[in-house]
C-alpha cells in the first residue's frame, strides 16, 4: 500500500538525519575549550585526580572511538552518565521531559485557540476595521520573539498585576504525591485540583509567551485559507440554502481550510519546542530546556548529547506525524 511505503521511506530518511545530528553534536562539542572534569572538581585537585576521572568518563580516548562506544551504548539504551549530576543521562532526560511536554502542549492549545479565534473573527468580519486591527496584532506578534513576550509578561503580571507566578513549576513548599513527572496530568487524574491550580498558575505565563508567535502564524494562515475558501462555489451555494454566514464559515469553509494550515503549524510547533529552552530559563521552569542550558554552561558532554539527540528526535517525530496526519485527512489522497 502506498501509505506504508511512504512511511518506511520517511523513517529511513529520518534515521539518516538523526545519525547526521548525532555525529555533528558528538564531534562539535569535543572541540571544546574547557575541561568539564576540571570544572567539576574543587580547586586544588591534583593532576592525578583529573586524569583518573577523565579516564573514568572515557574522555582520554580518540574521538572516533568515543563515538563508537557511545553509539553502541545508545543501541542498548545507555546514553552515558552526566558529569555534573552523576546520574544516567537517559534518566535525567526522561525525568525532565514531561515538564517540557506539558508546557509545549499547553502552549500549542493556547496558540490554536487564540489563532483560530482571530482567524474566524477576521473572516466573519472581513473588510472591516476589526479585521484590520487583527492584521496589525498579527504583525506585531510575529515581529517579536517569544523571549521578549515572556519578559513583557513577567513585568506586567509579575510586578504590575501579580496574578500569576513567574518562577518555577510549582510552589516549593507543596508536598507532591505524584509518581510520574507529568504533574499536571496526574493532578487532574488524582482529582487534586488544588495542585492543578498551583501548577496552572505557574505554567500559564510561560505557555502564553511560547504561544503568541505560533498563534499569529495560525491566525494569519487560517484566515487567508478561510477567505479563499469563502469564494468557492460550494460555500456560496450553502449561503443560498439559508445558512448564516457564521455557520457557513464553521461548517463549509473551515474543514477545507484546515489542511494547508496543518503542515505549517506542524513545522512551527517544532520551533515552539525549541523556544522552551529560553522560556524555561526565563521562568526558572524545571524542564528539559533549563537543564540543557546548565549542561552547556558546565560542559557536561554526555548530558548535552543526550538532550540534543532527544530534541532532534522530537523534531523529526513531529514532522513525521504532521505528514501522516495530512495524508490521512485528505480524502483525495485516501481514496484516490
Amino acid at each position, binding site marked *: 500500500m502506498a501509505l506504508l511505503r511512504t512511511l518506511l521511506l520517511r523513517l529511513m530518511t529520518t534515521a539518516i538525519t538523526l545519525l547526521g545530528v548525532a555525529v555533528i553534536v558528538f564531534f562539535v562539542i569535543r572541540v571544546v575549550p574547557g575541561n568539564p572534569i576540571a570544572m567539576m572538581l574543587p580547586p586544588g585537585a591534583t593532576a592525578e585526580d583529573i586524569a583518573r576521572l577523565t579516564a573514568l568518563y572515557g574522555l582520554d580516548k580518540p574521538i572516533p572511538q568515543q563515538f563508537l562506544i557511545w553509539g553502541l551504548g545508545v543501541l542498548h539504551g545507555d546514553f552515558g552518565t552526566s558529569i555534573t549530576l552523576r546520574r544516567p543521562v537517559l534518566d535525567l532526560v526522561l525525568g525532565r521531559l514531561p515538564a517540557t511536554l506539558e508546557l509545549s502542549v499547553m502552549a500549542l492549545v493556547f496558540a490554536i485557540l487564540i489563532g483560530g479565534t482571530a482567524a474566524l473573527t477576521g473572516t466573519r468580519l*472581513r*473588510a472591516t476595521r476589526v479585521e484590520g486591527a487583527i492584521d496589525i496584532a498579527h504583525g506585531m506578534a510575529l515581529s517579536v520573539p517569544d523571549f521578549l513576550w515572556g519578559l513583557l509578561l513577567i513585568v506586567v503580571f509579575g510586578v504590575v498585576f501579580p496574578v500569576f507566578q513567574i518562577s518555577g513549576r510549582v510552589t516549593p513548599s507543596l508536598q507532591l504525591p505524584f509518581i510520574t513527572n507529568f504533574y499536571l496530568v496526574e493532578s487532574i487524574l488524582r482529582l487534586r485540583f488544588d495542585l492543578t491550580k498551583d501548577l496552572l498558575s505557574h505554567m500559564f505565563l510561560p505557555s502564553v509567551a511560547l504561544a503568541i508567535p505560533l498563534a499569529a502564524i495560525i491566525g494569519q494562515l487560517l484566515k487567508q485559507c478561510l477567505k479563499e475558501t469563502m469564494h*468557492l*462555489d*460550494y460555500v*456560496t*451555494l*450553502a*449561503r*443560498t*440554502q*439559508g*445558512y*448564516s454566514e457564521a455557520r457557513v464559515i464553521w461548517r*463549509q469553509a473551515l*474543514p*477545507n481550510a484546515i489542511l494547508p494550515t496543518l503542515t505549517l503549524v506542524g513545522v512551527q510547533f517544532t520551533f515552539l519546542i525549541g523556544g522552551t529552552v529560553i522560556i524555561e530559563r526565563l521562568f526558572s521552569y524545571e524542564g528539559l530546556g533549563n537543564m540543557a542550558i546548565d549542561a552547556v554552561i558546565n560542559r557536561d558532554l554526555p548530558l548535552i548529547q543526550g538532550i540534543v539527540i532527544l530534541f532532534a528526535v522530537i523534531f523529526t517525530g513531529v514532522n513525521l506525524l504532521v505528514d501522516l496526519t495530512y495524508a490521512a485527512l485528505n*480524502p*483525495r489522497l485516501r*481514496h*484516490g
Partner: protein
Amino acid sequence: MNYLSIRNLSVRIKGGGPLLRDVSLEVAAGEVRGLVGESGAGKSMIGKAILGILPKAVEITSGEIRLDGTDLLTLPPAARRIKVGATCALIPQDPLTALNPSRRIGPQITDRLVDILGWARSKADARAMALLAEVQITDPARVLRQYPHELSGGMRQRILIASAFAAEPKLIVADEPTTALDVTVQKQILKLIAGLQARRGTALLFVTHDLGVVSKVCQSLSVLYSGKVVEDTTVADFFRAPTHP
C-alpha cells in the same frame, strides 16, 4: 401578482462603476423566463442579488426585489436569508467547484432540508434518493455515499439539479447550468431541468448567453445589455422579430 418582481434595481461596485442600471423584471409562478446577455452584461449579478450572495465589494444602491409580495431588501439579514433558503434554490454554473470536496454527496443534499426546513432525517434521505432517480442517476444509494471527486462533471451537475429541486422551492435561479458541460451532455441536462420544472410548476429564472438554450426551455425572456434591460418579451415574439444584435 408575480412570484418574483424586481423593480428598478441598481447595483454597483463599491466606490466604482455601475453594474446594473434600473433593472426591472418579473417572473410569474410556474413561468420559465430566460435572462440573456453577453458575458459581463451583469446577468449573474441579478441572480446573486435575489439570492443574497452578492460579493462583498458590490452593493445595491436602489430598487426592490419582491418575493411573493415581500421586498427582500427591507428585511433584516437573518429573516431575508431564511426566506430565500426556504423558498428559492440555485443551480450553479460549475459542477466541479459547487460541491464540497470533503463531504459525501448525501449530506450535501439533505443537510439543508433538516437544518433549515426542519424535516426529519428519514424524510430528507428518502427525498434525496427519489430525486437522484428522477435525474436518471442509476444506483442512487451508492452515489449518496460517494465523494464528489469520484463522479464525472455530468453526474455532479445532475446532483446539483436534484439538490435544487429537493427543497420544493417556488423559484429556482439557474446560473448558466449548461455552460461548463460538453455539448452532448447539455441537451440531456436541459431536458432534465425542463422536465422537473414542468412536473412541479416551479418558477425558473434561466440565466444564459446561449439563445439556442432559451428557445428550447423558456417561455419568456429578458435581454440584458451592459446593465440595462433592453427587451422583455415572450420567446415566440422574440424570435420572430429580434431587435438587438
